[in-house]
């Protein structure tokens, strides 16, 4: 057993980190929210140059043939920087969902960062993220891939998540046996973890430079203990996310249990990080200008997306007690 990130994966995460920290992802997210996708598309092209959307794509379709552990390593960094766009749908779901002719048609362009997917998955994913920039839609409940026909836009609590109700369009069947949903939920877990880590890092940084009553606020136990709880929850969430990725990589039949445990726990940890970061920052964190809000609203949105905590707890109970 070697339940740690490999040096290559660490290096890969470092490259994604370097790319994103120098590329103003917060600016891109704000522009994306206003319907200006230019800066976001530039970011997504950068991620494609590093191979992120190619990770799970088979080598014969121009992919890298990586595994879900590589994917969560990348998505933790993507979540850290609140990258906008249909990254889960394109980089995590489409490569798993598409087979045969549909794979030959779409995956080379997905791997190259030139085509994007959007996804519907029954009541867990009822609205299509960024359908206005997507080239095709995967309906995981119906088991189809088809053209995107937008009915109307629906506002999200996270303005950078542009959601759309779709109208029926032409489609053809795909058969992926449920793995695509698990991989999508897994990528969301990693995003939550990354967002939580940014919120913790930023709140810790603020507590080290903000003084009140003549002392740095990070010196007070009231602040320290809040942040220690966040650090603890995130430290324990990470192995669940990695464990689910290992289960996905190995075709483990217990994958739904592992993904659900990760989604519940990473969601809770990220949400605690969000609430705590806001509280530690005080009013400055409540402004539109501060980047904190980009994560706070995204975390809140992702708690419900790809299966709520109730949905995932029920799946855990089915696995460990035989019924929801």
């Amino acid at each position, binding site marked *: *057993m070697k339940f740690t990130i490999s040096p290559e994966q660490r290096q890969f995460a470092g490259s994604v980190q370097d790319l994103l920290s120098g590329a103003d992802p917060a600016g891109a997210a704000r522009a994306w929210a206003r319907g200006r996708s230019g800066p976001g598309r530039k970011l997504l092209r950068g991620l494609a140059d590093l191979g992120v959307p190619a990770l799970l794509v088979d080598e014969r379709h121009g992919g890298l043939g990586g595994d879900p552990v590589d994917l969560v390593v990348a998505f933790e960094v993507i979540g850290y920087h609140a990258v906008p766009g249909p990254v889960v749908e394109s980089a995590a779901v489409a490569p798993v969902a598409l087979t045969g002719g549909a794979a030959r048609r779409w995956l080379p362009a997905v791997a190259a960062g030139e085509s994007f997917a959007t996804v519907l998955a029954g009541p867990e994913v009822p609205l299509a993220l960024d359908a206005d920039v997507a080239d095709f839609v995967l309906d995981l409940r119906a088991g189809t891939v088809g053209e995107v026909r937008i009915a109307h836009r629906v506002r999200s609590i996270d303005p950078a998540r542009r959601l759309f109700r779709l109208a029926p369009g032409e489609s053809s069947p795909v058969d992926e046996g449920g793995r695509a949903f698990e991989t999508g939920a897994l990528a969301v877990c990693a995003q939550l973890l990354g967002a939580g880590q940014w919120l913790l890092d930023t709140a810790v940084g603020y507590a080290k430079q903000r003084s009140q009553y003549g002392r740095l606020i990070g*010196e007070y136990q009231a602040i320290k203990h809040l942040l220690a709880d966040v650090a603890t929850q995130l430290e324990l969430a990470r*192995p669940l996310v990695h464990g689910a990725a290992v289960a996905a990589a190995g075709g483990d039949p217990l994958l739904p249990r592992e993904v659900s445990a990760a989604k519940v726990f990473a969601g809770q940890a990220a949400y605690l990080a969000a609430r705590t970061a806001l509280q530690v920052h005080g009013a400055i964190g409540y402004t539109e200008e501060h980047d904190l809000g980009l994560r706070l609203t995204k975390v809140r949105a992702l708690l419900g997306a790809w299966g709520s905590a109730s949905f995932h707890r029920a799946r855990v109970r089915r696995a460990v007690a035989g019924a929801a």
Partner: protein
Amino acid sequence: MDLDIDAESAAFRDEARDWLAEHVPRSPLPSMDTAEGFARHREWEAQLAEARWSVVSWPREYHGRACTPLQWLLFEEEYYAAGAPGRVGQNGIFMLAPTLFAHGTPEQRDRILPSMATGAQVWAQAWSEPEAGSDIAALRSSAVRTDGGWLLSGQKTWSSRAAFADRAFGLFRTDPDAGRHRGLTYFMLDLRAEGVTVRPIPQLDGEPGFAEIFLDKVFVPDDDVLGEPGQGWRVAMTTANNERGLSLRSPGRFVAAAGRLAELWREQGRPASVADRVADAWIGARAYQLYTFGTASRLAEGAELGPESSVNKLFWSQVDVALHETALDLLGPAGETDESWVDGYLFSLAGPIYGGTDQIQRNTIAERLLGLPREARR
């Protein structure tokens, strides 16, 4: 990254499982905090030792199997899944022994470890004092030089297992003029020596799980100083990390309990009122298990346990309480009478206190892991 169990470790786990299936007592032993129960648990330690299961992570020359951290975790999973008795030797095995391996002399190891491994000598910890709880460095018990050794005086309290144990270990002030953390020395002492009075303290369950120890000029030979005189604080910190860290609370304990909770929930007709808490208990135990697999992997790569052991301790202490609270709520009126869950619940309540309270762990995490400024301290 993988979670594969190598063939050697799998064989080790299977051997442990088979042995435990055959030897674990069919009905639970009486509480180890009674005279009879203590004796029965001591016999169990001897039985474990005879089959080389009492100290699997120790070197072979000391009754161990030199097993890897992963194998230790697997052993513990089997141990708790089998419902095997609590470890009466645990203070010595998991707190003193790692310190002896790190700071002891070869003579001390050869003299002390074999009898610890067999349960022939059971050790109590003697950390706290009436005026030194979380702030251990405030301790006042002293040791003064005499021919061939030291004379120990003062009072220790909340000493786990001291009511029936043979020996104890703890810190004593040897240089009253040095700073708080200097001038402390780590001693091992005989609880039956002249000048020692042990007064058992009944715990919440009515049994004397801990005790006060009064010392009046108790002679301890130089051979029973662990590490250098005056270096006690540094020496003891090794032990502290072991209690909070990987060693003392194995995930097997929580994984087994979470499984039993899920089973109880099923038997009780799957009530919706606690359904989410049952899931959360299982998820928490699984998170802790995977976290320890990560720690074991890092240890195998040569890393050492640092302040992350506080993360570990803060987390499991909370998981344990929540899990048992859920069980009692689930049981309803039987939540006051079900002996096994009630015992587990009462035991879980001590977790956020011993080995450094949850509040002390949060300070450590904030200051040493997150780098927040130290608060002003005297």
